[in-house]
């Protein structure tokens, strides 16, 4: 019995050592956590692919500070709680100098306090909830935030769609959804519109007819659904089934090919705001689309892929300007980012450590996302 315990201890130690991802001295370890499996997997996979592409390109071009970037990534399975474990491991065990991630705001909010207390800079590609960068001065993002996105959609509904009475249908489980709903409501009422119904669902629900019937009874001209693509597709389908035929619109959580694959006819004609459209971008965006297609077998990059790419590029740029891999120096360099020419447009990091940049609005048409307009901050 004793011997067995001895062997299992030795075995565990050996496993522990083997599990350590060794970083050579000519490499800079950078951590990434993403939802590679689970409910928001297409987001996580897209942003991960973008990040990987950026790191590969940077290394091909000689790396930063004469060293190659080594990307160490962890999957949080889209689950609450897992991101904290992932980030703790990346910092404590792998000794990363900075963290990239996540798309979903709720996941990023779990990781941010850990990065902050360890003084490791964190760059989120696409978490738009304002609370994220309020966590502390080491937390950055390369996307716009919900007040902007919510207001953009409120103005779009009021001015472009000429709607007066709308309803809001929020995912109460998601910080992202609640944030967008709040700022949409403020923006829309400020513009003189009226919110006639506010209902909630739980992300992951499969039945929305109860709520949709109630929304329909309030007779809105449009419905703002700031949710994620799977839920949104099902909501649009079930709305059609109860004969509820008004435009639905939402935020960047809609952007996934799954939206049209699942929603088919039911999502046609609806709108959402997002970070980028391949049709709206300049030279940099074109080069990115080409490189991405080449790297991933002809797959077109979505906004999350573009943001994943940008997050890695901005971080590499900051390390280069900092001339060091120390947390506080990278932090200062990140904070000083100005007019960086990124795939999703010119990015400047503002005082709140958020990106100042434009949003685009797209419409679902024939199963594709068609560019409608660009809205500057």
């Amino acid at each position, binding site marked *: 019995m004793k011997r067995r315990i001895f062997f299992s201890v030795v075995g565990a130690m050996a496993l522990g050592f083997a599990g350590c991802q060794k970083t050579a001295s000519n490499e800079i370890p950078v951590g990434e956590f993403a939802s*590679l*499996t*689970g*409910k928001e*997997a*297409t987001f996580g*996979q897209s942003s991960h692919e973008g990040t990987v592409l950026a790191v590969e390109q940077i290394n091909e071009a000689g790396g930063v500070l004469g060293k190659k970037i080594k990307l160490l990534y962890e999957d949080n*399975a*889209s689950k609450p709680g897992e991101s904290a474990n992932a980030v703790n491991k990346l910092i404590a065990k792998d000794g990363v100098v900075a963290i990239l991630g996540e798309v979903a705001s709720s996941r990023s909010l779990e990781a941010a306090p850990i990065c902050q207390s360890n003084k490791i800079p964190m760059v989120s590609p696409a978490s738009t909830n304002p609370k994220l960068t309020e966590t502390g001065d080491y937390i950055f993002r390369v996307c716009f935030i919900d007040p902007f996105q919510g207001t953009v959609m409120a103005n779009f509904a009021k001015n472009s769609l000429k709607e007066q009475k709308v309803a809001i249908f929020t995912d*109460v489980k998601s910080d992202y959804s609640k944030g967008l709903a709040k700022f949409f409501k403020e923006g829309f009422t400020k513009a003189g519109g009226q919110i006639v*119904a*506010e*209902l*909630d*669902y*739980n992300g*992951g*629900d*499969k*039945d*929305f*007819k*109860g*709520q949709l*019937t*109630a929304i329909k*009874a*309030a007779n809105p001209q449009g419905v703002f659904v700031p949710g994620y693509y*799977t839920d949104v*597709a*099902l909501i649009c*389908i*079930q709305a059609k*089934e*109860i*004969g509820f035929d008004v435009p639905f619109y939402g935020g960047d959580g809609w952007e996934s090919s*799954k939206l049209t*694959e*699942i929603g*088919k006819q039911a999502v046609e004609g609806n709108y959402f705001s997002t970070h980028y459209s391949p049709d709206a971008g300049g030279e940099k965006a074109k080069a990115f689309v080409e490189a991405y297609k080449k790297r991933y077998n002809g797959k077109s990059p979505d906004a999350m892929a573009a943001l994943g790419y940008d997050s890695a590029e901005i971080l590499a740029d900051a390390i280069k300007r900092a001339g060091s891999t120390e947390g506080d120096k990278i932090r200062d360099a990140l904070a000083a980012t100005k007019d960086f020419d990124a795939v999703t447009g010119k990015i400047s990091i503002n005082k709140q450590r958020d990106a100042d940049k434009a949003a685009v609005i797209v419409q679902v048409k024939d199963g594709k996302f068609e560019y409608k307009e660009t809205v500057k901050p």
Partner: protein
Amino acid sequence: MDWFLQQLINGLALGAIYALIALGYTMVYGVLRFINFAHADVLMLGAFAAYYLAPAVAKVFGPATVPTALTVMVLSAAICAVIGMLIEFLAYRPLRHRPRLTVLITAIGVSLFIEYTGQHEKVFGAATKAFPTLLPQKEIIVGALRCSSNDLVVVGFTAVLLFAMWYIVQRTKVGMAMRAVSFNEQAASLMGVNVNGIISFTFAIGSALAAIGGIFFAMRAPGIEPLMGVQPGLRAFIAAVLGGIGNLPGAALGGVVLGLIETFFGGMPGLSDYRDAIAFALLILILLFRPAGLLGKMQMEKV
């Protein structure tokens, strides 16, 4: 009034699916006195079987036709029946005479095993897949009320299957053997009942029901993923307990009650985010006053 009737239709349609799934829980419980937690995952496997079969079957009968839907359902149900028997044979049979808790924990283990194996990218992958249209769908409009033809099909199917189950259990020889095994396994085997065969049969039927429930669920919400069974599975389990577990009409009633409660509270502005809390609080209340469930009978424990 229209609002009320519309919600009634929505709730009944949802409840019918819960009822269908709850029937499977209750069948297995009735015979073995244990909750097969893997039932929810067999439901998911049923939906995925249909997802992979549908394109092939559609080539023969054409996409979205009644023969396609029926063939896909029968084949998926058959596949799941075999899977159900396998699960019983591999995981539960070796533990048949162990404490009930051991089997229960094993059931949870089987459930997690199926869910996480399914999430591996070489199996189904974690991302949501679009479920194909199996049945031609029509909207039925009466005044201001609307209902999808699929909803009627679900309600009809559930009623037919409920009757079929009742008939099998109460009026056939196999059913008599099932009841005998449920009553006293040892005595039944002494009377010449093939206990292993009967239990396999029960799992086959329960799993086939789960497969059909899964397909209907996927038709209503056509995004399927390896964890899709968890939520309806939990609801159906509660429905089975609410109706009186082990009791077939009870499972159906429980499902419908739960579907109605969820739909009505989900549709109340201001209360919609408490939908599940209210639904489950009501269930606790009902069970406080009727611990054996709505249609369950209290059983005296033999000392």
